[in-house]
């Protein structure tokens, strides 16, 4: 089956004001990401990975060029339309997990579904399924402070996938994890990608993550350095 284009960037430029001058973080990027890809933006700090991920996630908008994400032109979306896009179609995984601290694991995973106004029974089923996916069904009542970093990140993954988004954006998801936990969550993400067909786009410079990617988009100083399909070094167990 031919997969549709999920992300299409054309001459994407992003500039930030810096005092009286401007800093150009992205200098005319163009590439596409197809549905079902397990791709990563790879590069050193300051290469523009996170900036690009924020634009793709409709948290920021381009200064020039266009970013079509799931058919929507990010630069033309209103705040409400961008929020709707994120709510319905995009899952986020952050370096620092970003779980809501006063919520339990269950409530954190449930949060995006509450915003979608999903019914109670359907919601419960989806949350438990997502937590089972990441192997944390027994931790439903634990709060972030009561869980390890690896467990927190698995809850964050469950939160990202619970609504079955078309696209999951993961910004340095293993940066705060040890090797074992990193491999654990990466394998989980590979499994989700394969079994649910969810498109993953990472921003990373962690070799452990790179070892799982099937496409590596290297950025350097805001420019596309290389874009290669690769055979993952690591795979699903």
């Amino acid at each position, binding site marked *: 089956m031919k997969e549709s284009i999920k992300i299409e960037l054309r001459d994407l430029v992003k500039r930030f004001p810096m005092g009286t001058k401007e800093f150009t973080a992205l200098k005319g990027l163009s590439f596409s990401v197809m549905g079902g890809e397990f791709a990563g933006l790879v590069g050193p700090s300051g290469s523009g990975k996170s900036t690009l991920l924020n634009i793709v996630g409709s948290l920021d908008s381009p200064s020039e060029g266009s970013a079509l994400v799931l058919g929507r032109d990010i630069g033309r979306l209103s705040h409400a339309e961008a929020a709707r896009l994120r709510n319905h179609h995009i899952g986020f995984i952050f370096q*620092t997990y970003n779980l809501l601290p006063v919520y339990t694991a269950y409530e954190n995973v449930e949060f995006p579904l509450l915003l979608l106004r999903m019914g109670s029974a359907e919601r419960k089923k989806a949350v438990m399924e997502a937590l089972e996916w990441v192997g944390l069904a027994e931790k439903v009542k634990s709060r972030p402070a009561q869980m390890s970093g690896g467990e927190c990140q698995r809850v964050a993954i469950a939160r990202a996938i619970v609504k079955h988004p078309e696209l999951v954006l993961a910004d340095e998801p293993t940066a705060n994890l040890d090797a074992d936990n990193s491999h654990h969550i990466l394998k989980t993400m590979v499994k989700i990608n394969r079994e649910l067909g969810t498109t993953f786009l990472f921003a990373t410079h962690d070799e452990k993550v790179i070892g799982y990617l099937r496409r590596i988009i290297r950025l350097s100083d805001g420019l596309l350095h290389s874009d290669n399909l690769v055979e993952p070094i690591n795979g699903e167990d």
Partner: protein
Amino acid sequence: MLGFKLALRNLVGAGLRTWLNVLVLSLSYVVIIYVNGMLHGWDIQAKVDMKNWEIGEGQYWCSGYDPLDPFTLQESHCAFPQEFMPMIQSGEVVPVLVSLASFYPEGRIQSIQLKGIPAGQDLIRIPTASLAGGEGEAIKAVVGRRMAKSNQLKVGDLVTARWRDRNGTFDATDVEIAAIFSCDVPSVDMGQIWIDLDQMQRMLGMPGEATLLIRGDKAPPDLTTAGWVEKDLKILLAEVDELIKTKSFASTVMAMILLALALLAVFDTQVLSIFRRQREIGTQIALGMTRWQVVRLFTLEGAMHAVLAAIVAALYGIPLLAMQARSGIPMPQSTDTMGFAIAEKIFPVYSSGLIVVTIIFILIAATVVSYLPARKISRLNPTEAIKGKIQ
């Protein structure tokens, strides 16, 4: 509903921080309701007592009479108006004759007001039945508890009283204390001796005359007659109204200070929350909330402090205030000297209007102080907020 659910979840999750704010805010509810209830109860009690003991349903004053100016008393006596006679005879209107006199308890001189009132009246609660039968050597008199206490009088005591009749001639006689009454209206008690009206008219040489007429509820209020000026309840209770207004203002200031402190706590919590929870705010936006939804959520969180505070206030406030309404609030003895009606105990009256207005007022105030800092969220950059960078 979603906003309420999330706000409640956030508040409950915040634990002690929430409950401390809620507790302080709940005190505002209870204190505002308590203070206003007490003042309302005092207002009602003072007015009822004044009507029962002094002013009836209104009065007519002999023109020129001014109870605050003793110099008017000598001349302020008018003949009973003819059109009032049937009501005076039936007891629906009670005439009172007032005159200055001197009184010599245990040899000490004291200026007093001598008040004559029909012995058989039952319009006001002065125990005038004790005045009947004073045809012997001494005139029978009743005095109030405060008057008796300050002059060390007891029932059966004989005290000399001296007065001037209408011609300016001094005369004196012994007065026998026939009864001592206890009431909460100092203006019928302090420095006053009540004797039988007929007796006093004879003493002063003023038959068929009075200084004021007290009207009962059966007597029409709009009778007009030459030489007499009608004083309705609004005028006669004006001092009580003024006093309650003054007290109410002072108490309102106190309650507002307490409320301001509570709202400051809510405001501070909100400001701190918005700084401390920037990563959470960024995450909520990333998960699909609009900025204004987050503003609404934080505002609702602040407002729900007031809702939770109302529930907490109800939990401990209802039993506490109900107990006070039953047992009353003891007033200090020194209030006897304040010159207005204060019972030994004031029974607070809590109206549903007072409770509803207090709840709405605090709810609106808490919402406003929550919204003000929450507006900052709408200007936050979500990509920075996600990283927890303070903006």
